[in-house]
C-alpha cells in the first residue's frame, strides 16, 4: 500500500523567507502527486500537481514542487513567503494501480508566516 510522509509538522517563518516542505512517498510504481493547501476555515484547494513530463511543476501563488523519482520525493518550495501563506499544506499521492483513484494524504504541515 502507498504511504506519504511529511516530516515537518509545524514550520514557522518570517515574511520573505524561503520555504521548502518535504514530502516522501512509498510506492514503486507510477504515481500522480499533489499538493493541497487548507487556509484557516477553508476547504482543501489544489496548489499544484505532477502527472508526467517536466519534474519541476509550478502551481498557484508562486509555489513550485520538484518530483525526484530516485528519492521518492515531491518537495514544495516557494522562494519568498507571505503572511497570507499561513495555512496547512498536504501532500497527496495517487498510485496508478488498477485505475485506483484514491488519494493517500500525508499528515500535513502547518505553516505559520510571521509578519
Amino acid at each position, binding site marked *: 500500500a502507498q504511504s506519504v510522509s511529511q516530516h515537518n509538522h509545524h514550520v514557522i517563518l518570517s515574511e520573505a523567507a524561503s520555504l521548502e516542505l518535504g514530502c516522501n512517498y512509498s510506492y514503486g510504481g507510477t504515481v*500522480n502527486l*499533489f499538493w*493541497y493547501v487548507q487556509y484557516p476555515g*477553508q*476547504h*482543501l*484547494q*489544489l496548489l499544484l*500537481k505532477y*502527472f508526467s513530463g517536466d519534474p519541476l511543476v509550478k502551481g498557484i501563488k508562486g509555489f513550485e514542487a520538484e518530483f525526484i523519482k530516485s528519492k521518492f520525493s515531491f518537495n514544495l518550495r516557494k522562494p519568498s513567503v507571505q503572511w497570507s501563506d499561513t495555512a496547512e499544506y*498536504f501532500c*497527496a499521492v*495517487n498510485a496508478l494501480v488498477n485505475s*485506483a*483513484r*484514491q*488519494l*493517500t*494524504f*500525508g*499528515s*500535513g504541515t502547518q505553516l505559520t508566516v510571521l509578519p
Partner: protein
Amino acid sequence: EPEVTQTPSHQVTQMGQEVILRCVPISNHLYFYWYRQILGQKVEFLVSFYNNEISEKSEIFDDQFSVERPDGSNFTLKIRSTKLEDSAMYFCASSGGLDGTQYFGPGTRLTVL
C-alpha cells in the same frame, strides 16, 4: 469557477442516530469521493463512486456507511448508527474523467455526542 458544495457545514447528533451528509459535485465530473479527517489526524479515504456504484472503499467504510447518488446532482454519505469515533470533518471530492485531479468541498464537521 465551479465548486464542490457540501451541506450542512456542521452537524451535531446523538450516538446511535443516523446522519446524511450531502454533497453537490462539480456538474460534469464523473468520479465522486468521500474522505474524512479526525481532528489532528490525516485526511483518510473512505470511498469512491463511479457509474452509480462504489469503485473503491477503505476498511473504514464498513456496513454502517453507505453512499448514494439519488439524482443527477447530489452525492450523499449516510452513517446509519453514529459512534463517538465518527466525529470528524467529512470532505466530498469530485474529479473529471481525464486527469483524475480531485476537487474538494468545504467539508461537514460531524460531532457525535
